[in-house]
């Protein structure tokens, strides 16, 4: 979130500077504004999802658009007929989910996500140590994978969930960690994009964690214990207050996961683009002397953030699962008398 703030501060400063310039040199007004709009539009175009993949040809202004298939599943007859743009834009748009049309189009970020998934599966199958006869990994990649696997298992799963229940959730946490890590890293390559910089992708991942968390809670406490936990363990006359609060609490966790990953990945990319875009906004090649090293620094930071965000997402998932698992043990111990729900909430809000 801090980076998102930096980004908006940069954008704001840029716009103030542009308007100042416009005041001083009236003739440059239109031009500068157009340039700024152009760069911002370019950045936003690049970080947001689209229905085609654009392969940019280096050292030119051209790009080869690859149109991705659009898939619409109408919930009722004729629900997916394109309609005129209600915002007054030109062309036609497809109706949304509210109008009964399920849009399952393959987009740029979908492709990137699949690419990351394929690279992940491929590299794990090729480089990880899966040979029963060799207990010790050989080679850099196998060692690296094993180190990360052991890290997720020992530091995240077992520390947050516990020794008994932890190993059950290790495959989920490992998949989340590596999948997010590979999607994050993919965005650092030329012509590629970070699927995790899309709020829908992070929302999907957070929904998976949400699902696993709830299943873990029901498994640990039983359906009755799970529902009882929703009451917060207070006196029945407080239930009308407590149940909405607890119910809301269920969704704040995945929401926080969604926004954190999305904002971090998006902000890093925008900052890099903006630093490079500064060259074109200021129309001076000398700016490159400053902005390119800065962009390089941010790039390295992004490399680090790719790991950190994968770690944070996995760690929080493990923490939430651990809280759900602990639900089963706690309710037997201190029943309704004291604030039975206090054990998890304090911990969750610190992060």
């Amino acid at each position, binding site marked *: 979130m801090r980076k998102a703030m930096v980004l908006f501060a940069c*954008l*704001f400063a840029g*716009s103030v500077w*542009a*308007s100042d310039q416009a005041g001083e040199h009236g003739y440059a007004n239109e031009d500068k*504004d157009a340039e*700024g*709009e152009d760069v*911002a*539009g370019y950045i*936003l175009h690049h*970080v*947001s*999802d689209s229905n085609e993949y654009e392969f940019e040809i280096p050292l030119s202004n051209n790009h080869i658009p690859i149109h991705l298939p659009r*898939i619409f599943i109408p919930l009722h007859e004729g629900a997916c007929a394109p309609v005129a743009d209600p915002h007054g834009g030109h062309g036609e748009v497809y109706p949304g*989910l509210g109008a009964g049309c*399920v*849009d*399952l*189009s*393959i*987009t740029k*970020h*979908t492709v990137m*996500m*699949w690419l990351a*998934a394929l690279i*992940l*599966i491929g590299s*794990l*199958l090729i480089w*990880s*140590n*899966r040979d*029963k006869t060799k*207990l*010790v990994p050989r080679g850099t990649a196998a060692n690296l*994978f*094993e180190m990360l*696997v052991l890290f997720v*298992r020992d530091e995240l799963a077992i520390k947050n969930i516990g020794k008994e229940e932890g190993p059950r959730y*290790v*495959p*989920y946490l*490992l*998949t*989340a960690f*590596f*999948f997010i890590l590979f999607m994050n890293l993919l965005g650092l390559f030329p012509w590629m994009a970070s699927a995790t*910089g*899309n*709020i*829908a*992708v992070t*929302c*999907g*991942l957070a*929904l*998976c964690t949400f699902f696993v968390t709830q299943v873990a809670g029901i498994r640990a406490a039983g359906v009755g214990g799970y529902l009882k936990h929703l009451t917060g363990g207070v006196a029945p006359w407080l239930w009308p207050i407590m149940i909405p609060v607890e119910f809301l609490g269920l969704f704040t966790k995945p929401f926080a996961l969604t926004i954190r990953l999305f904002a971090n990945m*998006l902000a890093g990319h925008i900052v890099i683009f903006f630093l490079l875009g500064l060259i074109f906004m200021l129309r001076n090649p000398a700016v490159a002397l400053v902005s390119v090293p800065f962009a390089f620094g941010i790039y390295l930071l992004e490399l680090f953030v790719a790991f950190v965000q994968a770690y944070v997402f996995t760690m929080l998932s493990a923490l939430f699962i651990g809280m759900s698992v602990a639900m089963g043990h706690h309710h037997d111990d201190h029943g309704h008398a004291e604030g039975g729900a206090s054990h998890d909430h304090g911990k969750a809000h610190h992060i």
Partner: protein
Amino acid sequence: MFLPSVLAASSFVEVRPGLIFWTIVTFVLVMLVLRAKAWGPILSLVEEREKQISNAIESAKRERAEAEKLLADQKTAIAEARREAAEMMRRNTAEMEKFRDELMAKSRKEAEELKLSARREIDDQKAKAIAEVRAMAVDLAMDVASKLINERMDDSKHRQLAEQFVQGLPGATSATATRRSA
């Protein structure tokens, strides 16, 4: 100012339900594939290795304790053997000593006895010889005396006289006593 227009046009906060769907599908597929092909083997391998390492440590500890026990046993056995050997040596020496002492004592005793009997014999012979000499002396004296006085004397009376005379001779007491007792 382009900021408002930028934010208005920004499509990065738009949530596409289709993408959520594809994300979940992809994630579940990736998880199933990796659990079957990667996590399972890797984790079982790691567990196997951990088990082997802990087993190796355990067995090394056990073997070391065993070796230490064996070493201690060996040491006590050696000490025992050494002690026994020393004991035997000591006993042997003592026995030899005793045997030699006994032998010496026996031979000494025998020699003593031999000496004693020899002395007794000598004494006997000496006493006998002395008695004989005395008797001869008495006879001689009597002969001499009878010849001298030329008179036949009452035998026993004169004999008594002679004996009295001989008694008066120096060193004849014991011999007379011996004779008397004999």
